[in-house]
């Protein structure tokens, strides 16, 4: 049989949270004007950066660990199909049921059907990026099933009718005074005298969540790692609320992106060293839960694993873009990114914000649908240095910008003003004679300068002079000086 399968599908529109309402520059402008948000973000990212730097510095073999993480991910994705099939057969052999979901719509439908089959109208959830990505909570709500987030930060986001703004600390944009207000407004069982002391806030959340843990019959989780050789799934967390969700309900439904599989337990050893230090700045996270299928008389007696594509094989199909799938969701790149620190996560539109979001979201949705994201970076390179699996994010950004331009060029008859400018600049710069002529023409800028500075330029340079002066072109270019002083001789 031979069939042309074509390009793998992108994540579909209208379901899930991979696309924003407006392009990054416009969304960023709103965020930049929020002084409270800027303060919250600076404080939080500065704190995490310092913690991460100090625990990373403790390990003499940190660079070797990063290289190992990179190699494992590269090799795994090369044979992803085989690792996934191994995972499926091991999970099945251990009493779990594996489902394959082509996209967000498929995954939501499968989870909804599974929950309905139990008769439950409430589920408890562990913090999970992929369930945010596919918009699971909304899909469940539409089916009359209430999903309760049990991670403290996700709970704050959920109670605040808000969206997550960070991969690890989704409520990073909130300070404790704002959290207290949300709890007082949204928690029916909260003490009216609640203060904004962290311990008091945590205690309020603990009491609120405990009732949910004791009554829920279905738990929903994501995974950090899925070990193919034994079919073992692994979740890392700080609070222990995840452990409750994984052990108390009768039914456990786990949703994972297909790139989360790793071949062996030896591989896990590398990532257990890389992830906590990179994400929370801890040597080891407080809770690491692992389970393999079901165990009679212990924990959930029904276990379903849903493997979600939702654009991942499309990303896999581009070898240069593929390293975005290496991400282990530590969020170190967000915390060191000078753009993220100033805009926060909402400006990126997708549940995956920051540098990794800027290279992942456009590949999952198709670049045209997140076209502003690859440009949402000054290419400063801080993310690459921080990435525990050594993903060269700046190089990926440059690659995706090229793909965006090339796809636009292929699709449109009329080139954009930018494309015309770039082609003209290339034509000028490819000839020394034309370049000299352009330099002479540019000296007209001296006519509009005052006291050696230019305060206003026409578009597209107006965006520069809105906030910065431009330099006055000099009387003589360097090459004119050189010819005058040294002649044409080299």
């Amino acid at each position, binding site marked *: 049989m031979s069939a042309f399968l074509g390009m793998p599908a992108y994540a579909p529109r209208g379901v899930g949270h991979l696309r924003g309402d407006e392009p*990054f*520059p416009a969304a*960023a*402008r709103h965020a*930049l004007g929020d002084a409270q948000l800027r303060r919250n973000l600076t404080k939080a990212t500065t704190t995490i950066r310092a913690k991460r730097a100090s625990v990373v510095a403790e390990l003499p073999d940190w660079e070797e660990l990063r290289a190992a993480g990179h190699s494992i991910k590269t090799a795994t994705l090369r044979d992803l199909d085989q690792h996934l099939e191994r995972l499926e057969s091991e999970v099945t052999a251990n009493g779990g049921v594996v489902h394959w979901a082509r996209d967000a719509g498929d995954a939501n439908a499968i989870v909804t059907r599974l929950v309905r089959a139990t008769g439950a109208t409430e589920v408890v959830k562990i913090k999970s990026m992929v369930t945010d990505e596919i918009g699971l909570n909304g899909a469940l709500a539409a089916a009359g099933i209430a999903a309760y987030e049990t991670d403290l930060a996700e709970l704050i986001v959920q109670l605040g009718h808000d969206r997550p703004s960070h991969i690890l600390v989704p409520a990073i944009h909130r300070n404790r005074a704002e959290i207290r207000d949300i709890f007082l407004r949204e928690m029916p069982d909260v003490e009216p005298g609640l203060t904004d002391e962290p311990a008091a806030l945590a205690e309020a959340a603990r009491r609120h969540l405990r009732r949910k843990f004791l009554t829920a019959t279905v738990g929903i989780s994501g995974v950090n790692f899925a070990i193919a050789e034994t079919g073992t799934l692994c979740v890392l967390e700080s609070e222990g609320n995840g452990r409750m969700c994984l052990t108390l309900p009768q039914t456990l439904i786990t949703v994972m992106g297909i790139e989360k599989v790793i071949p062996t337990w030896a591989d896990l050893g590398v990532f257990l060293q890389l992830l906590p230090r990179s994400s929370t700045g801890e040597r080891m996270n407080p809770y690491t839960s692992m389970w393999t299928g079901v165990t009679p008389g212990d924990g959930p007696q029904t276990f379903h694993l849903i493997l979600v594509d939702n654009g991942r094989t499309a990303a896999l199909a581009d070898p240069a873009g593929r390293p975005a799938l290496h991400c282990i969701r530590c969020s170190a790149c967000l915390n060191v990114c*000078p*753009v993220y620190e*100033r*805009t926060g996560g909402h400006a990126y539109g997708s549940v995956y914000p920051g540098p990794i979001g800027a290279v992942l979201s456009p590949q999952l949705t198709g670049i045209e649908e997140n076209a502003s994201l*690859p*440009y*949402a*970076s*000054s*290419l*400063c*390179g*801080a993310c*690459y*240095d921080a990435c525990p699996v050594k993903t060269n994010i700046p*190089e990926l950004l*440059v690659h995706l*910008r*090229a*793909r965006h*331009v*090339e796809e636009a060029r292929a699709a449109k008859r009329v080139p954009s003003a*930018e494309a015309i400018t*770039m*082609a003209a*600049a*290339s034509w000028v*710069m*490819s*000839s*020394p004679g034309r*370049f000299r002529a352009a*330099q002479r023409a*540019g000296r007209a800028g001296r006519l509009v300068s005052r006291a050696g*500075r230019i305060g206003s330029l026409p578009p*597209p340079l107006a*965006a*520069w002079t*809105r*906030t*910065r*002066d*431009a*330099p006055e*072109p*000099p009387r003589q*270019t*360097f*090459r004119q*000086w*050189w*010819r005058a002083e*040294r002649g*044409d001789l*080299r």
Partner: protein
Amino acid sequence: MRIALFATCLADTLFPDVPRATVTVLERLGHEVVFPLDQTCCGQMHVNTGYQRNALPLISRYVETFEPYEVIVAPSGSCVGSIAHQHAMVARRHGDERLAQRAAAVARRTYELSQLLVDVLGVENVGAHYPHRVAYHPTCHSLRLLRVGDRPLRLLRRVSGIDLVPLPDAEVCCGFGGTFALKNSDVSTAMLADKMRNVLSTGAEVCTAGDSSCLMHIGGGLSRLRAGVRTLHLAEILAST
């Protein structure tokens, strides 16, 4: 040593004192500087904005112009970073393996100024005198693409009379980022505001760096605020006597 100067299109056109200062420093140290007149631009703006196809003729031009020279210097970490990390990659992406190999060979002989001085010429004291309070901003591409490390600071510390003050959060980007400064002008400006706040906090008269582009950004902001702080390229301080 005979050294070919790549002035960079930006400095050639807008900041001619920077390549002139580069010539001054190298000649003072007894080296011969040549300026191949066929040079134009490294093509980084095109590559980083997504227009790789339009960058190809510029990459070819760079390679053809500088291929005959053993040692090439540019007073820019960013342009040298692009030459080192992008030229061969772009050529290869467009199926020109021969250009990729030639570009890689020329890139290996292309140095940023502080790399050339410290690593190739083995000099830290270039005989400069500059009696002013100076803050040094390590530009992102010199720091993270080229890994120049403390080479520029080692050169600055040997300048007589200089009052070199540490810049808080020095390694954070100034927000330039090429066309990022236009496409994401608001975020760029927010980053610039923090950089300027840190520069001003040092009480420095001069903010220096190894890239005219980043200095154009920081200097453009300081000028707009009438802050009374100047920007000056590393080469210009090293050329002062």
